[in-house]
């Protein structure tokens, strides 16, 4: 028989499960399903037309590709920052630690304005980049920069506790068995860190796809070039094209769902290998 519950001394399973389902339905499932219901008022051909319009395709492609690149960059540098914070003691560590959370707390529009001021052709950083021919604002690069800023804490905060809990004895054991530093990292530490890295990637990626506030200032918002999908949705809403907006939303939702399902599966697979779950 399919066992729903293992006997446990803690009461409240049915109540907690019921509440969870109810709450998730109210907060997540019902709003999402209205999205599908709304878009189903479109007939199939109009839906395809809206979704396959060059402007829509470009926006969706831009949103996913910048989010992907930003999340990848964050995994790499976020890992380094988390490692330094977890492993070393140095003056000013507390301050750096607090700074990591900054993108969480900052209103995204403020972040967007600050980044634009920095990377625009006359900004502090932008003026040098532009003189080398690098368009740091009003370009996909600018969007990516904003998403890196927004996504960093997700990666750092998911990996840091795992690094802290790594037993230094594992590294010592590897060294006493003749492994070099890179071998120790690749064979002993990395496999354990892979699941949280994937989780961090997942979160940063998901956040990047959904990000709006910080991007619209730095993106330039040229249709077909630097217009992200969430902005396109807003534009359609402002033109009272509700069904058009929901059609794009449904596509984004579907793609996001598939991508997150894949990364979740990878993460489950990686955790299973190291004996978590």
């Amino acid at each position: 028989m399919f066992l729903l519950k293992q006997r446990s001394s803690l009461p409240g399973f049915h109540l907690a499960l019921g509440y969870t389902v109810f709450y998730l339905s109210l907060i997540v499932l019902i709003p999402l399903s209205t999205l599908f219901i709304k878009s189903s008022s479109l007939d199939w051909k109009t839906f395809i037309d809206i979704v396959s319009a060059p402007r829509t395709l470009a926006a969706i492609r831009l949103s996913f590709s910048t989010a992907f690149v930003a999340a990848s960059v964050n995994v790499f540098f976020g890992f380094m920052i988390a490692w330094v914070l977890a492993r070393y003691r140095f003056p000013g560590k507390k301050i750096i630690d607090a700074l990591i959370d900054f993108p969480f707390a900052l209103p995204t529009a403020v972040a967007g304005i600050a980044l634009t001021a920095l990377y625009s052709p006359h900004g502090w950083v932008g003026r040098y980049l532009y003189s080398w021919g690098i368009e740091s604002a009003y370009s996909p690069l600018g969007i990516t920069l904003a998403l890196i800023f927004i996504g960093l804490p997700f990666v750092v905060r998911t990996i840091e506790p795992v690094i802290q809990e790594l037993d230094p004895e594992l590294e010592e054991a590897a060294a006493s068995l003749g492994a070099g530093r890179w071998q120790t990292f690749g064979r002993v530490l990395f496999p354990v860190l892979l699941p949280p890295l994937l989780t961090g990637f997942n979160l940063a990626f998901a956040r990047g796809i959904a990000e709006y506030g910080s991007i619209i200032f730095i993106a330039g918002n040229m249709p077909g070039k630097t217009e992200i999908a969430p902005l396109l949705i807003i534009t359609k809403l402002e033109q009272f094209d509700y069904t058009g907006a929901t059609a794009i939303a449904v596509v984004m939702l579907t793609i996001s769902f598939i991508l997150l399902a894949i990364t979740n599966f990878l993460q489950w697979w990686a955790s299973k290998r190291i004996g978590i779950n």
Partner: protein
Amino acid sequence: MSIEVKGVSKTFDTFKALDRVDLNIETGELLALLGPSGSGKTTLLRIIAGLEVADEGQILFHGEDTKERKVKDRQVGFVFQHYALFRHMTVFENIAFGLRVKPKHLRLSDAQIKEKVHGLLRLIQLDYIGERYPWQLSGGQRQRIALARALAVEPKVLLLDEPFGSLDAQVRKELRQWLRRFHDQLHITSLFVTHDQEEALEVADKIVVMNKGRLEQVGTPEEVYHKPANKFVLNFLGNVNFFHARVVDGKAYLGNAMIDLPDLHKNSKTASLFVRPHQFELTRQPKDGSSLKAVALTINPAGSVVKIDLKSEGGDTFQAEITQEEFQALRFQKGDTIYVSLRQVTYYEYEI
């Protein structure tokens, strides 16, 4: 390989973990570092392995200074207290780890590695669990895997940090006998850290008793147990009773009982005597002038020996152990008057 420790000191912040330690370890010896926690035994082991760097002093392997040698080049097998097995690798891969990370020109072929690992698994009598993961095993099994993993790279020295520390009593006993037999087969120079005197006495060829970062005594189990160098060693290895004796004309007295102590200084006034529980002889009648009159306070006949708590006329309380056969013959009961004579005194000091 022989190991020489020369004047090694180590301080952590303000805590002096090791204070100018000198120690020679012969090739093929099984040596126990015994001491209470904080005595510096684990620090000494880690310095020998190269996991910790000494503030002063030298570690010589076969007469050669190891200062420039990194952990990975020391050919030292280290078994950690909590095993430090790689949880994402199977038992087989754990043991093969040291073989797989070798530089390419020294690395064995896959087939050779397989053969070697299976050989080690047979040696530790766990041939059937090669494909399992460490978290699926019991503590005793993990300990043996950790040992096999350390042995796979054919180290010249085997270092074990509290190898049986986190196992339950039954498994502990089995594993330490197993370690003894294992060492007799391989004859690899081995050091293990323990705070359990019974373990050290049972397993080691030689025991190093440590306290507060210093060596108190180095000797065979027999030497440290029967001829302790000082009070600390005496107290740390087994139970001991303390008596305060008067000294008159070079003879020690406990109450009216005269205790024969060789080499007692003529001018001394008092002496402290330390007597192990099995060194008493208990009788119903006084034997001669050396018998001490006492009363039995409690009697515990459960166990391989009978433990009797006694109180002497002079007010000293002490514990004696007699064999079950003696007990059957004498049939002491609580409150009985018992005459006690000292067969031997383990250790004494005198004050002038």
